[in-house]
């Protein structure tokens, strides 16, 4: 049994926690599934590996009955990004720090399904093996071994805080900020294109959106009781999945995430049609960094960027 399983078992058996949210094995080789652990037997099924891509913090706000009513204190297994989402919730007064028990796990990145798809040219993976830094994918007529790094999510490759900085318990030794190169490369490359090219790309990409709202619903930072797209009095946006309304949905979501996106990549991995949802979120993140020197979810005592004002802030967007 792993140390993580043991600790969760202990926390449940001594009644410190009555619910722990973690990951368990999924029904397919490259997929894990969120798990609601209430018993010692459940605790034995907990896993943590590069398939654990869901941001579990999202469950704290998705079902408001859960916290405070059904459970006094909830434990969550957290990667760096999950922990940042919890910090964000605390700064936004959605969750009290003492309501959650954070169990940090050392994260070395999670797998992005699109990269697997590209690698196997769409063929189904029936078995995976991760040994050290390498991953082996097996299907009916192929076997491919590549460095794990090659199939990790872009969010992970540009992540400076892979381990939780806010935690109650950490399995192993947490790393503080790690150095990454080209954190905003995806934005820089995109900005280097002409405005026509950028517009064409956005139009093509978002025209494929089917408006299933998986991106919004897995997003830990999207927790409005009623999203603007669901309001019908007034109706802000056409419900038709046509490119103009799709773009309005995505761009407004991008702006609503200003100073709030932790770049966990949950939206990217949730999208059933594999839209590139990261580029615009990262652009907004870059703006927040440059203008306000603000990165979401790092400091539990900091006010949210959009709820505070400093006199020395750059105001060139107003003053011209």
């Amino acid at each position, binding site marked *: 049994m792993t140390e993580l399983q043991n600790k969760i078992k202990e926390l449940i058996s001594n009644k410190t926690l009555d619910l722990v949210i973690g990951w368990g094995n999924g029904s397919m080789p490259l997929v894990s599934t969120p798990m609601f652990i209430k018993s010692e037997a459940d605790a034995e099924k907990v896993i943590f590996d590069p398939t654990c891509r869901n941001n579990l913090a999202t469950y704290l706000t998705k079902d408001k009955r859960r916290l405070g009513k059904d459970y006094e204190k909830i434990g969550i297994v957290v990667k760096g990004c999950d922990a940042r989402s919890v910090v964000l919730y605390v700064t936004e007064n959605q969750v009290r720090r003492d309501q959650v028990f954070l169990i940090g796990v050392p994260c070395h990145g999670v797998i992005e399904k699109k990269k697997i798809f590209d690698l196997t040219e769409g063929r189904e993976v029936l078995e995976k093996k991760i040994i050290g830094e390498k991953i082996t994918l097996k299907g009916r007529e192929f076997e491919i071994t590549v460095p794990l790094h090659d199939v990790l999510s872009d969010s992970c490759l540009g992540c400076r805080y892979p381990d939780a900085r806010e935690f109650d318990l950490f399995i192993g030794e947490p790393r503080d900020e790690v150095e990454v190169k080209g954190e905003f490369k995806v934005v820089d490359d995109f900005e280097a294109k002409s405005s026509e090219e950028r517009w064409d790309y956005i139009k093509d990409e978002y025209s*494929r959106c089917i408006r*299933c709202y998986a991106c919004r*619903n897995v997003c830990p930072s999207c927790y409005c009781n009623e999203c603007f797209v669901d309001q019908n009095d007034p109706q802000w946006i056409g419900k038709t999945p046509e490119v103009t309304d799709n773009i309005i949905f995505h761009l407004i979501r991008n702006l609503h995430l200003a100073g709030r996106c932790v770049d966990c990549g949950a939206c990217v991995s949730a999208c059933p049609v594999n839209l590139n949802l990261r580029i615009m979120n990262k652009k907004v993140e870059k703006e927040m960094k440059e203008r306000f020197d603000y990165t979401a979810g790092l400091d539990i005592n900091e006010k949210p960027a959009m709820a505070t004002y400093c006199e020395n802030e750059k105001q060139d967007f107003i003053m011209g």
Partner: protein
Amino acid sequence: MYKFKRIYLPEFIEYLQKTYFVFAPVKSGTETEFKQITSFTEIDQSRLNTTISPKEIFFPRSEVLFTYDEDGIKTPPKREKPAALWGMRACDTRSMRILNDVFANAHQMPEKDMFKDPYWIDKYKDCLLITEACLNPLSTCFCNWFSSGPFDETGSDIFVVKGEVDYYLKGITPKGKEVLAGFEKTEKTIAKDEEELKVLQSIADSYMNPPTDLGDLKDKLGKIWDDPLWDEIGAKCINCGACAYVCPTCHCFDVSDEGKGNKGKRVRLWDACMFQLFTKEASGHNPRSNSIHRVRQRIMHKYNYFVDNYQKFLCTGCGRCVTVCPVNMDIREIIKQILDHKIEKKDK
């Protein structure tokens, strides 16, 4: 049974185009979707299942029901030719037949003539469904739970198997037989061909996971409506509509008026029981207020309510929802969990 050399596919598509608009799996970004094709070169044969099911050919994601302006109301022009679908899978073909029951053939209703959907019927009535056998089923396929399989011909007009050098074709309906008879390049199959077909089918069948017996599912569901089991099943659902939107049998829709000034249109759009807004009432009350209620609705509709009305499941085991679910809600596991569940007797 007929066959033609695989190199004659372009000609066959052209032949179909004389009578039909031909739809086939086409690459769209990283995904594959059914789209109208002008040439066979657009067909994407690399994937077993399209990401979005072919239902959108007859039941589009958004469909203008009518437009209005100062001169009055106009209905949009009808499709000039019926649709022929190349590259359907058995699960999707059966799904289209199920949807046709809903939209055009609500035979179980006492007022049956009231429930005929002209928009569906116009697009569907003369369509040609060409099912291609699945030679390489996915691990997520579970059509065999529904007495089907990779070589199931049910519901097809024409059934096709892609062999080493030939396409083998079988006309199932009179319409399908007539279409095949009119194509010059076909020849009759010989004993050797039958051998190849048998081998292909046995390989495909061997790839399928063993089926689960669904004999008790409907009755079991009828007994567990208020069982705490649903809390367990529904807890991790995040209530997006990905499963319903990729599903070939989900067919709930919303109607929306989009207008400005004196002009506008009424549109029918896909909707999903997974959304919070789906059952929200004007008063603000929501009878299905949380994810657990909504997941129960989805499962009950597919495997219980629908069986009451149509004597069949509203699911054909295509496995798309299994693949796309962001939190790995695997409908196969949910069904097994329900079947294995022991109902606790209530004290009364």
